[in-house]
């Protein structure tokens, strides 16, 4: 009996093994086939929308790629047939143009040689002012007929971002038109409060084709940017009529410092949930005064061509609550000492802001204070750059004591604050934390500039014989 059992077990196990073997084979085959299909799908999605495109791309890469100027010509034809005023902002071509700008401006006769648009590159970048176009779909249909593939990148409208509970419409930020191996990048510029133009970042959404063009090589879209409204001029280059910024070199210069930071509206809302905004009449009045003082200061400094940024309490107000802090009693700006100009004081006096005090000297710890409308004061701190940090100085008038405020190195970004386009440190968090410590999120009403900041250092005393010069109070 035992023997039979053993044999039966043996037979059963053999059978199971066979079944498993078969099952395994089957499963493996299924798994393999699925994987193949998956790869296939992925490839199709990455390489282009239709096999035809994949083909045309390989074809063009084997042969010499068609000159970019043909694509540009086609694109300009498309654009002008729809009456869309675009202008050229391609840094590469503008760089070339800039070299012989005088010649281009004066010459009317069409030059036959393709000097600019034939330069080898993957993209040509154009700008479009949003309000000059109605975003009609007709353009895209024509573009498709001409053989372009296009991609539209939309995102939330930042102009409505600062507002509670508006479901902001999504707005187009970038368009890319691709023909064979060359692509046209069309950046949409929007006018914003503060009389400047803004373009958005280029961010791909989930379903988008990541290999449509080599996005990383694009000149615009890594960050949002802020620009002055450019003066345009119509020129004829390479036998093509195109609008370009009147002064390409200053545009290119602007471009290199154009990075824009949006205010952190969501965090600001969270802050106001925690610490409700001061809606008292005093607060309203102070904000209004601070705003007009800031507007005046910005106008004055911009006229002088002095680069500045929001500093101290004003910067904290922007970063934390996107507004002026009502219990801060002044407006604070920072200026690099290398940008100091002797005209600053007379210019402010001319603008109706008398000098209140001047501490320090250009070589050391300079600080200017101007008297605005009733008690609101404008402080300009001058910043000194060292190898590994940046600092500004403070002076106590009665004792002649000097203080030093240390900041990690930073660069400047544009932002919008109370309807002004102004600079703030790009590394705002480090800047604010250096100044106000890790608890900067908690409003503090009593603030001592000599002891409260977490980055303050005692810096000796001014020699008494210099006092007349370095401590001037009016």
């Amino acid at each position, binding site marked *: 009996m035992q*023997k039979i059992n053993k044999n039966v077990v043996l037979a059963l196990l053999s059978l*199971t093994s066979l079944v498993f073997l078969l099952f*395994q084979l089957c499963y493996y085959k299924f798994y393999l086939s699925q994987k193949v299909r998956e790869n296939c799908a*992925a490839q199709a999605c990455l390489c282009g929308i239709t096999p035809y495109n994949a083909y045309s791309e390989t074809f063009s890469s084997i042969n010499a790629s068609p000159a970019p100027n043909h694509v540009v010509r086609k694109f300009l034809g498309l654009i002008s047939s729809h009456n869309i005023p675009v202008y050229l902002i391609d840094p590469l071509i503008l760089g070339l143009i800039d070299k012989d700008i005088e010649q281009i401006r004066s010459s009317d006769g069409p030059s036959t040689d393709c000097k600019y648009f034939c330069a080898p590159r993957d993209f040509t970048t154009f700008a479009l002012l949003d309000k000059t176009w109605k975003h009609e779909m007709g353009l895209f249909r024509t573009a498709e007929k001409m053989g372009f593939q296009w991609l539209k990148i939309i995102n939330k409208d930042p102009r409505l971002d600062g507002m509670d*509970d508006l479901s902001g419409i999504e707005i187009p930020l970038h368009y890319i038109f691709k023909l064979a191996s060359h692509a046209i990048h069309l950046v949409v510029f929007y006018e914003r409060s503060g009389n400047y133009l803004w373009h958005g970042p280029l961010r791909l*959404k989930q379903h988008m084709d990541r290999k449509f063009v080599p996005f990383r090589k694009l000149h615009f879209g890594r960050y949002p940017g802020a620009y002055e409204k450019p003066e345009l001029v119509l020129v004829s280059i390479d036998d093509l009529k195109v609008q370009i910024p009147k002064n390409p070199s200053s545009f290119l210069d602007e471009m290199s410092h154009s990075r824009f930071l949006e205010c952190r509206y969501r965090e600001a809302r969270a802050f106001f949930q925690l610490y409700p905004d001061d*809606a008292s009449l005093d607060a309203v009045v102070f904000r209004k005064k601070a705003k007009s003082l800031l507007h005046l200061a910005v106008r004055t400094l911009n006229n002088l061509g002095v680069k500045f940024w929001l500093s101290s309490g004003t910067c904290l107000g922007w970063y934390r609550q996107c507004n002026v802090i009502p219990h801060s009693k002044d407006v604070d700006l920072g200026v690099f000492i290398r940008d100091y100009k002797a005209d600053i004081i007379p210019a402010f006096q001319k603008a109706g802001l008398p000098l209140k005090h001047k501490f320090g000297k250009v070589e050391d710890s300079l600080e200017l204070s101007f008297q605005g409308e009733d008690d609101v004061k404008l402080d300009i701190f001058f910043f000194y750059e060292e190898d590994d940090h940046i600092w500004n100085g403070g002076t106590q008038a009665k004792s002649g004591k000097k203080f030093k405020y240390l900041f990690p190195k930073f660069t400047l970004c544009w932002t919008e604050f109370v309807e002004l386009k102004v600079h703030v440190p790009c590394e705002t968090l480090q800047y604010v934390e250096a100044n106000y410590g890790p608890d900067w999120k908690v409003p503090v009403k009593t603030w001592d500039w000599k002891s409260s900041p977490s980055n303050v250092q005692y810096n000796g005393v001014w020699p008494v014989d210099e006092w007349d010069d370095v401590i001037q109070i009016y």
Partner: protein
Amino acid sequence: MDEWKPNPAIKPHKKRSWYLAWKYKLMNQRALRKLCQTGAVLFLLVTVIVNIKLILDTRRAAYEEEEESAQDYDDETLNVEVPRHPVRNKKVLDVEVYSSRSKVYVAVDGTTVLEDEAREQGRGIHIIVLNQATGHVMAKRVFDTYSPHEDEAMVLFLNMVARGRILIFTIKDEGSFHLKDTAKNVLKSLGSQVAPFLSWRDMWTFVGKKGGEVYGEKHAKSPALSTWGDPVLLKTEVHLTSVEDAECHWPDTELNRRRKRFCSKVEGYGSVCSCKDPTPIEFNPDPLKDNKVFDVPVAVIAGNRPNYLYRMLRSLLSAQGVNPQMITVFIDGYYEEPMDVVELFGLSGIQHTPISIKNARVSQHYKASLTATFNLFPDAKFAVVLEEDLDISVDFFSFLSQSIHLLEEDESLYCISAWNDQGYEHTAEDPSLLYRVETMPGLGWVLRKSLYKDELEPKWPTPEKLWDWDMWMRMPEQRKGRECIIPDISRSYHFGIVGLNMNGYFHEAYFKKHKFNTVPNVQLKNVESLRKDAYETEIHRLLGEAEILDHSKNPCEDSFVPDTEGRVYVMFIRMEQEADFTTWTQLAKCLHIWDLDVRGNHKGLWRLFRKKNHFLVVGVPASPYSSKKPSSVTPIYMEPPAKEEGAVAVPAVAAAEQT
């Protein structure tokens, strides 16, 4: 084991001997056999374990891969795909309709598409329109046919519904008091047998296809005046048709694509969705020469009254000099249908999460809309503010274009408004005439950006304050003595009957007979004389040439003003101090103009027309123009009626408007 083969020669009945033989044979190699057996078992076990492990491994790997690839493409926002409703292949819909005093509901295939059991709300006939092909709800309306004129609106609506749509009716509370014969006949023509006999507090449900079959009807009569009919519940089946039958075949253009999207979703917009010769959705009115308001943004403040919005946008887009690119519609709440209307016209719309309740909600919506407007159009110095229940006059933009420079230059101006509170059919005459008034009429007006940004926005009423934004704007703290410019004949017409501060009675008494300009290209006269000082000169000139009316007569009588045309008359009323409006209110009441609060005054002077004569009313002695009164004339004094009177007739809104 391999060498062993069953011997076919052995017969079944000899099985035992066969087995024994086999056993004996194997016994000889016991050790070998044992080894083989254990080896096989072990091998098999290992195979099984390896197999199981392999399966598990591949499965996990496949799963992880899937997840990874998903993460790769996950950029910033989780795109949650809304599960789509399974395509309904079903050809029959189950419809349930319930009608009773305090509750109505409609369920289609078990899904409740209407449920209203709120107290003191939703009285009247509820109508639901279903798409005959998909069964989707295309429109949902309630007509309070207990109140006057609502039946007319219902007839209008029913006429606009396309043939073939499925209509569902149910009554809540009362729906027959002002249901006139015309409306009953329309219901009858839809196939209702009960409708002609509907009476006080009857309950009624009806399901039918427009211009087609009747799917069911139920009715419960009210036994007595003081009670309601028994609740009725109608259960019926509706047969669906094919999609092709339910759609029109318009030529494929961008406009028609918008139209198609709209018409397949919603119903009740009449000819815009008619298959033959649909009404246009693009108007291309004549451009204005030298249009000074072409770049002024237009904010349309809307709630959930899509059919109002439709009518409003039509008139707005037909006005000469309109610039559709500058129009933004702000919708208070995440309502779909108003957004559909906005998209139909190719305009941009923004939805706003409602904050607070009632008046404060409207007020917060206004604030958000105005702020957004100036954010979106940072260059704009002004914004035109409109509401969804206004008709816009054909020369609205022409009127603004001719007057807007005053708002820019004259600091003493608060706004330009298209609305004259006192401009009724019988009191307004001259489309080219403008006034300065101390009140802010609203209803289509222009706001200066500096006023909003510097003064109003920072101290706008917070959500917890249940204030009307317009009342707040009229308060002296905000207005600061500034005035608004208004036309004699309004350039907007307030047609809304349903609203927060609005009902049928109120509309009929105060808005229906308002005069509305329909003449295009009116050339405004005296625009420059609207400036602060020039206007005083103008008024003095006017008073100088005015004939003094006979103050012994009753000013309410028609004969108070002679039967002339084109003359200027003046009367004097008693007005002890600046805020004494006792006599004015009584006069306004008997002239059937706005009397709920004081509107349209300028330094104790009112200007209107009577029998086509310019009619001036001066309050003596408070008005600085009192000096024009000859000493022989005694100002007229009119006593307010005893308290109880009037309080009944004035609806709840009056209280709100006067606070």
